[in-house]
């Protein structure tokens, strides 16, 4: 009996360990490659540790080689992404919160249909709206500007944020709102003094989700922004694709880690919280 338990325990840890290997390998390879020199990369193998830790690739990925226009590096695009991500995140989260509140706590005729349309909107393939969006941005005169991308991300984030807040507010007793109505509080008063103070969990989930979505976006970035206005994922892709007679894998990897760093840090800091919130909906649903 004891043996049997031990055996299955060992098997369990073997499988779990194997997957640790699968998930961690790419990150490990990225990190060690980014710290090696090109010579070491050519001569050594994928997994070998760098002989000396060398941050040159990081410096080049961040600030370039100083070769002028043919030089691509991430620094300006990193800030572009921040400029786009933060406002879009705030706008879509606030609107989503108030939508979720209005749709659950002030049920009016058609509220369910409206929610359904929001929900369905989150599933559409973006290819179906790419061309008219390009036309619209051009028409508004905000194509190829951070404002354009802020608009795009706010609009297409709205479905998700509304969904999150709606699901959260559905679980909060309607009676609280009724009590506040009897007490004489109005629509906004109830939202700001009663519901918002208890929305921290879902706020965190929404903010992390939106940040990750917007930061990691490539399709909108590559379609609606060009050259110096591009967000970081587009810049990373350009950098990796840029023709040079030598491929600098160490610089590519350093750049990739840089582009992933903000979301990675957020994930490590608040990941568990985030997963809890995110999975709650799909498990219940």
């Amino acid at each position: 009996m004891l043996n049997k338990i031990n055996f299955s325990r060992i098997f369990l840890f073997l499988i779990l360990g194997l997957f640790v290997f699968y998930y961690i390998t790419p990150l490990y390879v990225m990190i060690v490659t980014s710290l090696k020199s090109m010579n070491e990369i050519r001569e050594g193998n994928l997994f070998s540790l760098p002989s000396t830790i060398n941050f040159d690739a990081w410096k080049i990925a961040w600030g370039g080689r100083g070769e002028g226009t043919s030089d691509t590096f991430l620094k300006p695009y990193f800030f572009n992404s921040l400029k786009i991500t933060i406002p879009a995140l705030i706008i879509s989260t606030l609107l989503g919160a108030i939508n979720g509140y209005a749709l659950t706590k002030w049920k009016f005729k058609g509220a369910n249909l409206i929610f359904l349309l929001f929900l369905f909107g989150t599933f559409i393939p973006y290819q179906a709206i790419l061309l008219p969006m390009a036309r619209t941005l051009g028409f508004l005169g905000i194509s190829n500007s951070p404002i354009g991308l802020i608009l795009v991300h706010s609009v297409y984030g709205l479905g998700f944020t509304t969904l999150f807040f709606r699901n959260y507010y559905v679980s909060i007793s309607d009676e609280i709102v009724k009590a506040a109505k009897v007490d004489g509080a109005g629509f906004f008063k109830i939202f700001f003094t009663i519901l918002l103070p208890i929305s921290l969990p879902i706020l965190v989930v929404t903010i992390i989700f939106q940040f990750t979505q917007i930061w990691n976006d490539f399709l909108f970035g590559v379609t609606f922004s060009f050259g110096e206005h591009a967000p970081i994922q587009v810049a990373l892709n350009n950098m990796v694709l840029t023709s040079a007679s030598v491929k600098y894998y160490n610089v590519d990897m350093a750049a990739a880690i840089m582009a992933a760093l903000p979301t990675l840090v957020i994930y490590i800091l608040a990941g568990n919280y985030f997963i809890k919130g995110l999975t709650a909906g799909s498990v219940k649903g």
Partner: protein
Amino acid sequence: MEWLKKNLPKIVVAPSFAVLLWFVYGFIAWTFYVSLTNSKLLPNYEFWGIHQYIRLWQMPRWHVAVENLFIFTILFIILCIFIGVILSIFLDQKIRSEGFLKTIYLYPMALSFIVTGTAWKWILNPTMGIEKFVNQLGFENFQFDWLVTPGMSIYTIVIAGVWQSSGFIMAIFLAGLRSIDDEVIKAAKVDGASTISIYMKIVLPMMRPVFMSAIVILVHLSIKSYDLVIALTAGGPGISSDMPAVFMTKMAFGRSEIGLASASAIMMFATVSAIIVPYLYSELRREQDVK
């Protein structure tokens, strides 16, 4: 004033709703209309019937893209769910280092597909990556060049995609497992069921809604998969790893075939709708039943 007070909730939702109607449904309608025109570089609003759809389905490249989408979607779903289920069940066995393991299984989700593609492109690189590593280990004849082999490159996209998304599926299943009423499992234990049969016959069947959610999320991810293909293979070698999402942008912005591109986008939209609409419908029904 009274009117305003009464309609305030509607007024507050109205801007978002208007934005939604315009930017989602209006745009889809626009795209649908353009798919019925002979638009080239710029939209042209002269009605042309379903010619673009006929052209689309006559294009070998579109067939490649659709076939790849099927291969990718099916493998992606099966692998993600398989890994998700296995890992979640194993993690559910009161593992002491659960928190640590979860963090590792889940971090790829925080990475963009571009980063994922960049990393895997390097690892799967046939001259410098895994192949070289294994060769150096002494297996000189080892070959692993899927990335550059037509017909195989689509599977590298599966590998990278599964790597990025399976952790999240694991998390969904784990949350599902934890939400199952303990008493059912206790009852089964009292009845003398083994751990394996408890999971196979009782727990997993109870997680049907979780499976449904996971499948919908994964289908949705796979149809949208554009970034990963671009970063990993760019649809190559040749067009062998093309996918509808890549096809659409190539046609729209590479070939000046806006009409054709719109037709392909509408095909994607129709595919997603065919899966999502029944799902949402059943979800909504259930929600009302619960009430």
